[in-house]
């Protein structure tokens, strides 16, 4: 074992702070908490340990074993086998962050292609090399907007239909920054027009989700115009699969586009690791956190890739840094790159249409069940809210008896929405699964 400090080093340090021995530093801890006796069982063999762990793991229930209609930010999509095959290649899997372009061309090219794909998908000028997850990306968008105005504009407007966990992350991130975050207490039924009323010249950023947390799709043109009239930034959080079908946020003149990249070939795996998408206009490229890979030529004129742009503050002017993120989610970004490359433009459009049609078929079937209604007015993509005759929590419990993982109980985040169930439908849900869901709801509603 390598221990960086010698005994002499430690004695010198203790002497300087006036303490005799290391244990003296823990005097403030109560005696009973110090060095408790661990009552660990006797050791077992590897064979026995594996057996026990496998037994414990049978308590898990996965979307492979259940019929799942659960989404709310993590979606059950098919992942082509080629994604993992490429991902697991040791050249990618074991590579360290690509600080040395001469030995990291593969990783750098993959990042460059990832950026190109995300820029094309969102319609934006530039994408960074990715963030850790969607929540990080939205928090970095708030951070960027705040620093873009050098702290002069102190108001952030968040739509109440941005994922509640993302909003929580924003609050955590910006805790301690003198910012006013408003909009979240608007009714969940509110739309873009209600946000317009909140915008003033103190507004640094207006952020919405599209499709929103409830699955709804709104035309954001007016909201974007109203935001820009006050010289504020407009940020849109997307579901990347939906962009195979609906207008990219660039057509609403979004300044920042963020997204959760999990639907792009990344397993749900208990909530992570995921992928944060972050794209913006060229004029803000220097304000963007993270890193950017660029294409260039070497001394012999041959094509090569290199980390082109890191916000300079992070390396040489750290005291001026506006974000502490200077890395990316390399391997997961690669997975999404492979996934998007396999699908291609037409494949993504087909997939998006499939999701749309299956979700609409499901909405129609569920609305036909007495007591259950789906808002028929607002367009949606692959997720929608079902109003239930009993609390959504109870509906989910009934469904689980039939090995159906129901939707997301919105009462968990919105106290007034205890009877609302957020249902997601993807290409993984067959027609018979959807029919089965409707039949079970019907059956249970008679009890």
């Amino acid at each position, binding site marked *: 074992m390598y221990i960086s400090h010698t005994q002499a080093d430690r004695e010198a340090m203790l002497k300087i702070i006036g303490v005799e021995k290391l244990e003296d530093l823990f005097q403030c801890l109560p005696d009973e908490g110090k060095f408790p006796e661990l009552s660990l069982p006797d050791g077992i063999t590897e064979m026995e340990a594996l057996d026990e762990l496998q037994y414990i793991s049978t308590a898990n229930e996965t979307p492979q074993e259940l019929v799942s209609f659960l989404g709310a930010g993590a979606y059950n999509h098919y992942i082509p086998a080629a994604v993992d095959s490429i991902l697991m290649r040791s050249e990618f899997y074991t590579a360290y962050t690509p600080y040395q372009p001469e030995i990291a061309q593969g990783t750098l090219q993959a990042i460059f292609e990832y950026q190109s794909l995300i820029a094309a998908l969102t319609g934006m000028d530039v994408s960074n090399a990715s963030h850790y997850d969607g929540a990080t990306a939205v928090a970095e968008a708030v951070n960027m907007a705040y620093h873009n105005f*050098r702290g*002069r504009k102190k108001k952030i407007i968040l739509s109440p239909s941005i994922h509640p966990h993302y909003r929580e992350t924003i609050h955590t991130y910006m805790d301690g920054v003198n910012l006013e975050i408003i909009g979240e207490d608007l009714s969940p039924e509110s739309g873009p027009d209600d946000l317009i009323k909140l915008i003033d010249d103190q507004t640094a950023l207006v952020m919405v989700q599209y499709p929103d947390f409830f699955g709804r799709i709104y035309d954001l043109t007016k909201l974007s115009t109203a935001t820009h009239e006050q010289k504020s930034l407009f940020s849109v959080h997307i579901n990347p699969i939906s962009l195979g079908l609906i207008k990219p946020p660039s057509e609403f003149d979004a300044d920042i586009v963020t997204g959760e990249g999990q639907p792009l070939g990344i397993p749900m795996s208990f909530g992570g690791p995921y992928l944060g998408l972050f794209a913006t206009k060229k004029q803000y490229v*220097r304000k963007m956190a993270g890193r950017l890979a660029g294409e260039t030529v070497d001394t012999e004129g041959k094509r090569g890739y290199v980390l082109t742009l890191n916000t*300079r*503050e992070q390396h*040489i*002017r750290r005291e*001026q840094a506006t974000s502490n993120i200077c890395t990316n989610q390399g391997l997961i970004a690669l997975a999404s790159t492979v996934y998007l490359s396999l699908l291609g433009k037409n494949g993504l459009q087909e997939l998006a249409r499939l999701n749309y049609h299956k979700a609409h078929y499901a909405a129609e079937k569920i609305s036909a069940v007495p007591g259950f209604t789906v808002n028929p007015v607002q367009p949606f993509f692959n997720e929608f809210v079902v109003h239930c005759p009993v609390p959504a929590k109870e509906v989910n419990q009934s469904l689980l008896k039939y090995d159906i993982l129901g939707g997301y109980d919105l009462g968990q985040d919105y106290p007034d929405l205890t009877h609302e169930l957020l249902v997601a439908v993807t290409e993984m849900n067959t027609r018979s699964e959807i029919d089965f869901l409707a039949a079970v709801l019907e059956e249970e509603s008679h009890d």
Partner: protein
Amino acid sequence: MNTPADLKYSTNDEWIRVEGDVATMGITDYAQDQLSDIVFVEIVAFEGDSLEQGETCAVVESVKAAADVYMPVGGEITAINQQLVDSPELINQDPYGNAWLIKIKMADSRELDGLMDADTYKNLERDH
């Protein structure tokens, strides 16, 4: 090294040209030469802002380093050279002309007394 006689200079390698109560400022030929190829300029204040002498008003980044640029005198910023955003290399090409950074409406012209003339600046002892 070019050091025009009609300008005043700060120890942080900014130059200032005074016309009435308005001062135009930039970074000196010596500064651009030390930094080498300039790739990015950001004026970190807005028109209409009032900054004190010595406050940071811009950041200049070259292939070698990034440096803060300070207000040689205090006052209100009346103009910002937007051309530098697209063409930062102007600082290397024409530091005393097209590559001015900002114009300042001086708050107190006595602050000029603390700045150097060309001869003093030229003979300034450098610690590197």
